[in-house]
């Protein structure tokens, strides 16, 4: 690292993110600058993001960014102050620590010492697969080559394509001057974790603007993404969706491709909190128990088709998730029965007398069947094949009635064959109804669900493995012009 003369830190290409040794070395340097008693906590984060975006078959943006973020807390017993910096030279670190201490000295006394409080329990974190050398090895040049390969087929056919490629990596460690090197970490101490993520998505449209096809996939491992197959799929859908005809809205049997199923499951995911039905709100309320004076929930009751099981195992190599404390394998819907809802640790301690929170429906694997989409089509007298949805909005929190649009291809099925492309429709339907009207299910596959930056406060979307589903009486309420 640089000394006093050069305060600009550059990371070499082969060191785009900080290693565990780097993080610990930085933390030790920060700890050494602390003056006086108290605890120093350092959150060392580094990230790299390489992206390429194109439209109309030409690159519009290509960037390779990286940065470090160091958050320093100084807890001097009666106050706590914090400072963030991305400069790692000695002068800057010392300045930052002094600033945190000044801030701590001015902070009000936020809490009394609590000498009788018992020690914190050790958190358990799962071992998850979220790092891929293949993703980390992608260079700007190889991203450009990948984009060329994605654009070329569409351009050869006279189509316009737009898309996005992104590879990112990051590392994080949160270390305490008091607990570093001990065997008693606090739940908020984060052991060194490095992760990668890759995503590829593209849309192809014809020159007249009558047809559109989309395909996309995300994974922590770039080698799991067959970009050529995605390009071919998007192109095929565009060609097949050209010159759509208008179809009257109404209730139809639908064949939902996995991406569309994932989007319906996302509506359910927003409701998977335990305390909401216990306040009498949401889809999982059973009713008021006046004798006990509380709301009963639908936990333990069948709420979906018995063929649906939605679960997540952090050790699943295809469903890597940022490891948080107390993250155990979990099933939310077991053969259609609602078995788990998320809750916070405070709730767990008070109401359930267990010492762990329960996470919500983030990454998941959904059960399926063996029926292929082609078989679903051939067994359909009249129905619609849906690629995916967009602009979904919740209309009613109790029934999860939602509205949204079909996009990037909608096809009418008649007598076991795709007969024509139709204009997109607006649906007004509840995923609970759709998942209780299932006729057939296919083999689950990974879908496009890119992980958001885990350093933000938002719960990141995580990979999902979802089957195609054929469901009856799906409600469409109007036609739309958007393709």
């Amino acid at each position, binding site marked *: 690292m640089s000394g006093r003369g050069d305060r600009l830190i550059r990371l070499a290409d082969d060191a785009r993110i900080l290693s565990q040794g780097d993080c610990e070395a930085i933390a030790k340097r920060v700890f050494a600058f602390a003056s006086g008693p108290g605890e120093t906590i350092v959150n060392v984060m580094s990230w790299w993001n390489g992206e390429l975006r194109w439209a109309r078959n030409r690159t519009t943006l290509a960037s390779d960014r990286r940065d470090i973020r160091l958050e320093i807390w100084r807890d001097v017993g009666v106050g706590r102050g914090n400072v963030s910096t991305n400069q790692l030279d000695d002068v800057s670190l010392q300045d930052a620590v002094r600033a945190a201490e000044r801030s701590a000295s001015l902070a009000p006394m936020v809490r009394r010492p609590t000498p*009788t409080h018992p020690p914190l329990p050790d958190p358990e974190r799962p071992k998850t697969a979220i790092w891929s050398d293949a993703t980390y090895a992608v260079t700007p040049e190889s991203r450009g080559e990948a984009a060329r390969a994605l654009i070329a087929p569409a351009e050869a056919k006279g189509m316009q394509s737009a898309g996005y490629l992104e590879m990112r990596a990051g590392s994080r460690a949160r270390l305490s001057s008091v607990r570093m090197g001990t065997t008693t970490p606090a739940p908020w101490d984060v052991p060194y974790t490095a992760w990668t993520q890759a995503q590829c998505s593209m849309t192809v449209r014809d020159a007249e603007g009558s047809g559109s096809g989309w395909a996309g996939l995300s994974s922590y491992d770039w080698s799991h993404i067959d970009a050529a197959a995605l390009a071919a799929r998007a192109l095929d859908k565009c060609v097949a969706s050209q010159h759509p005809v208008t179809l009257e809205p109404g209730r139809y049997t639908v064949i939902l491709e996995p991406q569309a199923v994932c989007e319906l499951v996302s509506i359910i995911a927003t409701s998977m909190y335990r305390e909401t039905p216990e306040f009498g709100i949401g889809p999982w309320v059973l009713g008021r128990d006046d004798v006990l004076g509380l709301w009963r929930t639908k*936990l333990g009751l069948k709420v979906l088709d018995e063929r649906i099981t939605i679960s997540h195992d952090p050790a699943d190599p295809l469903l890597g998730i940022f490891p948080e404390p107390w993250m155990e394998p979990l099933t939310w819907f077991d053969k259609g029965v609602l078995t788990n809802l998320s809750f916070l640790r405070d709730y767990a301690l008070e109401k*359930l007398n267990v010492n762990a929170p329960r996470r919500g429906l983030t990454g998941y694997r959904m059960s399926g069947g063996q029926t292929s989409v082609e078989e679903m089509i051939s067994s359909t007298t009249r129905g619609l094949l849906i690629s995916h949805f967009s602009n979904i909005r919740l209309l009613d929190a109790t029934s999860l009635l939602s509205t949204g649009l079909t996009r990037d291809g909608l096809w009418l099925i008649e007598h076991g064959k795709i007969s024509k492309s139709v204009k997109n429709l607006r649906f007004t339907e509840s995923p609970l109804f759709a998942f209780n009207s299932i006729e057939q299910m296919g083999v689950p596959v990974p879908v496009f669900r890119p992980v958001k930056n885990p350093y933000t406060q938002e719960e990141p979307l995580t990979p999902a493995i979802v089957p195609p589903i054929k469901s009856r009486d799906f409600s469409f309420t109007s036609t739309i012009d958007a393709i």
Partner: protein
Amino acid sequence: MRQQGRMRVGRVVSRGLAALVAAAGVRAMPAQAQTKFQWPDTSARVTQYAHMEDCLAADERVKEGVARREELTVWHDTMPQNPREWLVPQPAEVTKTATQCAARFTEEKVDIHDFAPALKLFLAAGRDSDAAALVERRVAAVPAKSPRDRGIVVDSAVDIYLGARPTRVAAAEELLLHRAKSTTDRVERLKTYATLLMAARNAGDTVRSVRAAKWIVAIADSLTLADRQSDEFERLFDGNGGQLYVYDALDELTGFKTRMDSLRRSTEAYAKLERANWARATGERLDALKIPIGEKAAPLVADTWYPASAGAAPRPTPGHVALIVFLEHTSCIGQPSSDNAGPSPDCVARFAEIRRIAERFPALEIDFVMSTHGQFMYLPPTTPANEAVLIRDWLDAHHVPRAVLGVTSTPFWRLPPPDDRRIDKEKPNFEHYSFGKSWKVGSGSMFLVDSDGLIADAWRLREEELGQFIQVLLDRQHEGK
């Protein structure tokens, strides 16, 4: 729990190492120049503020700054409550800031739509005459044929007067009396006088509070049955009913000295006095109100006693004056999963108060009643015996002399899985110390028991008054009454 949100946010000096290029495959170029962050000049020039809201905001900042500087050296949470808190003037820096900022605003030119911020600012600057003129002008701007709208303006002004420091009771009283006299609605007048009673009491102005209490009682005596059964009457006193205003007024008229005189005679006499006030306030018979005062204090039940010998004899001990405190650690200790978990300010103050009481009255018995909940802070679920030990350790940390702790293992059952919610059953002590449907004991309830085993107080009095109660009971005990 102490709010964590008042931490100072640190400076952010980060800059991204963004490198944008025009075409794919070109290596990123580093930035050529870096500018060190310079702090802007943040000193406030309040005399140049053009808007009253800015002045009020500046005032708030100064007030906050004074409070925080004081908090660096003074912990208020264990100090006795200041009975004259409402009369304490605001810090001199706050007044100075308000005065400087408000100098450019003259009362005559203030738009009546800026009434509320202007009134606050004038009071903060000590310009009470301007404040009064502004209120008069604002009220006059409302047509006389709109008494409801005038009432809204008056209520706003009263709130601002009473919220100022020191509280402006005289100005508020003038407005409230005018409001009361301008309406024929007796329930409305009752509410107005009750507001005055509360304000006078907070200001320690006994003359005003007694005067207001007399008006309340007079109004109450004139209420018809229809008035008392009206929705408007039921909505008073936070939905508990206007009879509580009347009861409060009778209490004020009775006076603390009279209550102490009754208590000196006997707890039964004191209870009879309280019930008489209640009967007069509600029109019900004397024994209709289920209150603990004058009732026999049931023996406390516990599975674990600390010290262990305390369980050998009945508690509260017959022949002794005792203070029974119901407390639950779950309502005292803050968010158990937070790294800043600690006792709530209310609990810290409560323990400090009980400690002072215990030190002042060595003959007073102190009995804490607590129960298990299957968890203690962020620990994994533990046995009732272990939890009792943790509760004892927590109580010991507050150093209440001679405190006896009785811990009950709360019986419970669980809803069937996967719900698994814990449903606590009724605990014997809670059953024995709840009276009727309206008096339910909870965490924080305190009962003062005389040497005959009768409950003399359960109202959660101020520390000063509680001390006088205890002294009277101890004197009676000493005199063998």
